[in-house]
């Protein structure tokens, strides 16, 4: 009986360990929002981000018109949550960058490198997402042509993110 119990504990700890490493995801998101009006002049996007329990803090970079969202540890958020927040506020995403551990990037098959480039760091990497809704409509149309060889790009699968490593 004791042996079974010990095995159980071991199993639980392994499961916990695996699941926490799998959850150690995005730590920071940088979004430039676009729209018909000045996106930084409205509190709407800020408010949508702050509604998310996983969000630690939101900063604005007024020189680049960018929202910088810092996330709590071990959150399970994926980029589409932030895209939806921006759209709920009545704006669109113009550019979208994500900071995450390199290991996470390598182990998650949803992140598809659209151009073969290597990360400079072994820890956190910054990637930019190029899917529809993560770049301007104009940019997306251009990219559709440039990335016609990447079969998954035109599919617009919501769970897939086509990325380039920026830093």
């Amino acid at each position: 009986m004791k042996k079974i119990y010990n095995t159980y504990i071991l199993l639980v700890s392994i499961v916990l360990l695996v699941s926490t490493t799998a959850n150690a995801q995005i730590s920071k998101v940088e979004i430039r929002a676009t729209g018909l009006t000045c996106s930084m002049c409205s509190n709407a996007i800020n408010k949508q981000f702050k509604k998310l329990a996983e969000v630690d803090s939101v900063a604005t970079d007024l020189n680049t018109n960018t929202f910088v969202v810092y996330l709590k540890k071990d959150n399970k958020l994926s980029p589409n949550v932030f895209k939806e927040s921006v759209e709920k506020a009545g704006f669109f995403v113009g550019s979208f960058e994500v900071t995450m551990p390199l290991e996470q990037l390598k182990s998650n098959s949803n992140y598809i490198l659209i151009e073969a480039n290597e990360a400079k760091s072994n820890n956190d990497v910054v990637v930019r997402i190029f899917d529809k809704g993560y770049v301007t409509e104009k940019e997306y149309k251009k990219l559709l042509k440039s990335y016609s060889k990447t079969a998954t790009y035109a599919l617009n699968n919501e769970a897939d993110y086509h990325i380039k490593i920026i830093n």
Partner: protein
Amino acid sequence: MRAIIYIILLIANTLIVSAQLKIGDNIPNIVLKNQNNVGMNINQNNEKFILIDFWASWCGPCRLGNKKLVKLHNDFGANKINIIGISLDTDKLKWIKAIEKDKIKFTQVIDPKGFDAKTAVLFGVEELPSKFLFNKKGILIAINPTEEEIMKYLN
């Protein structure tokens, strides 16, 4: 137990709603610093209309709006209306530069915390620019009035 929670939530909710200024409310007494670091009460209490304009140096539409406010100030002078600009800039230097560039002569104060600034929260400012017009008795009579509407009140 559930009822109590509902009641608490209800009260909390009305508190949040009432935190925003409504038509008919009195102008609050808030002291903020101007560009010379002198504290100014936005309730100037001198039998004149008061127009409060929330803005920031980085807000394009606000800067265009400043031109119109400068004209309004020049046309009506300080006899009829006190215009008070409240900047939500976090960078004071940029604010001061903007005042100079836009040639603003009316009162300018700053609450340098962006949309989290206490004054912005109290007024319920959710976008820039935002304007609040108070009558001679200090009662809020219009939110985001157009220039024409402001002139109608003054004439």
